[in-house]
């Protein structure tokens, strides 16, 4: 009988326990185990020069305007007379980048061109293959495929990169894989293996160049961040040029401000290119010798429908 009483007590206790539990309805709903997509790894589709893993939102048109001015230091052509390069605008680009879906962006742009190729038309497709999630997926991976052409008059100097013989030779192809992780609200890091193929190059230059890039964003307030990107090409001619002091690895350090509709980048870069082939392979001045330039990017997205 003693055992029975014990059993009865235990049973009562067990059966009534849900009665206690229902006092706290919040426990009833269970814990949140969803695997959510991590948003805003970067604020825009770009770092200073490079692409970020971000794509334009579905049905939005990102209108972009970028400028790079002349070198700041005397050795890079700057100084007080031209307001540290301000009067010597090196390159500018206007582009329309459209979000076909949240993952796919199609873009066209036109820039002056910084290296020996000018009158540059660029187009690219960008696809977000994998999205970082809060639990399972550690990184976001975006693929970029770009193609550039130029409208410039072919040079008569046969050693020039612009001495084209036909339209095909004016084409440059860019392929890039971007892998990024948002470590926390404030820190995102990206690596970007890049492959550039130029159909026509100057004498002693390579048609195919592989480069590796790293970038990051460090947010220090709700609306502003420091952005950095850096590339290193694996190219014999660039390595030789680096030793000779005519080529330096491109580094961009910028300040990003988000105002609610526009995103501004105030950048310092030691190149003036906007397309990968241009900024990775044409950076003639050194950061350590005040060879960087001031530039800016403006991004303004509009919703189309």
């Amino acid at each position, binding site marked *: 009988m003693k055992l029975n009483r014990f059993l009865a007590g235990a049973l009562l206790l067990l059966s009534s326990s849900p009665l206690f539990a229902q006092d706290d309805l919040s426990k*009833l709903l269970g814990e*949140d185990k969803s695997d959510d997509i991590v*948003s805003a790894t970067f604020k825009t589709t770009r770092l200073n020069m490079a692409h970020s893993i971000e794509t334009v939102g579905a049905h939005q048109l990102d209108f972009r305007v970028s400028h790079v001015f002349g070198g700041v230091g005397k050795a890079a052509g700057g100084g007080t007379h031209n307001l540290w390069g301000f009067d010597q605008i090196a390159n500018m680009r206007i582009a329309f980048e459209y979000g076909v879906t949240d993952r796919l962006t199609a873009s066209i742009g036109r820039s002056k061109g910084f290296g020996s190729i000018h009158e540059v038309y660029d187009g690219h497709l960008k696809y977000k293959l994998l999205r970082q999630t809060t639990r399972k997926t550690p990184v976001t991976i975006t693929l970029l495929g770009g193609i550039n052409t130029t409208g410039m008059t072919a040079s008569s100097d046969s050693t020039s990169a612009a001495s084209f013989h036909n339209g095909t030779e004016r084409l440059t192809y860019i392929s890039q894989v971007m892998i990024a992780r948002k470590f926390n609200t404030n820190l995102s890091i990206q690596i970007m293996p890049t492959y550039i193929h130029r159909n026509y190059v100057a004498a002693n230059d390579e048609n195919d160049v592989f480069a590796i890039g790293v970038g990051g964003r460090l947010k220090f307030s709700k609306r502003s961040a420091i952005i950095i990107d850096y590339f290193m090409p694996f190219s014999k001619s660039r390595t030789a040029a680096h030793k000779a002091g005519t080529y330096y690895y491109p580094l961009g350090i910028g300040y990003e401000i988000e105002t609610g509709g526009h995103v501004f980048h105030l950048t310092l870069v030691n190149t003036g290119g906007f397309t990968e082939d241009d900024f990775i392979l044409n950076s003639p001045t050194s950061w350590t010798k005040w060879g960087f330039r001031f530039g800016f990017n403006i991004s303004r997205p509009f919703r189309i429908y």
Partner: protein
Amino acid sequence: MKKLSFLFAFSLIAIAAHAQNVWLGTAAEISFFSKTAIENIEAKSKVVGAAMNLANKSLFFKVKNTTFKFPKALMEEHFNENYMESEKYPTSEFKGTIVDSTNSDLTKNGTYSVWVVGKLTIHGVTKDYKTRATFTTKDGKIRGVASFRVRLDDHKIERPSVVAQSLAETIDVSVDVTFEPQK
């Protein structure tokens, strides 16, 4: 032995009663609306956890901030990154009770106009709220509808001057939940 079986039966009743009292939200939607001369912003979430205990008339809602959908991707990003700080404060929740002077049985078919009072936590800041709500009971389902206003300042949600013209100071929030008995 008789005592035991009696207790056993009693405990079964207790379980049954428990099941009848607790109702869970099976279809729920929380939306909000910001109206200014420049821009109207509307967002909606259908990923809402809701529960109601009719024994003590308690109510509970919980919504994950990142589940709110906006017409523009950028608005959604701003909402989570700049206003709600969703990584720091992932959810918004309400804990309250139904205050009904006539003490009506909400499980019976009919429409009931009641007060709901309780604490709403948004952006990590908890504040007391009181609002009218309408419960409509039909075919074993209870649908609760309420709307109230939330002042961004009350929850320490900053509204920078640059967006002051396109984001309202006070946001209209609507809740629409259909409850079914817990199975």
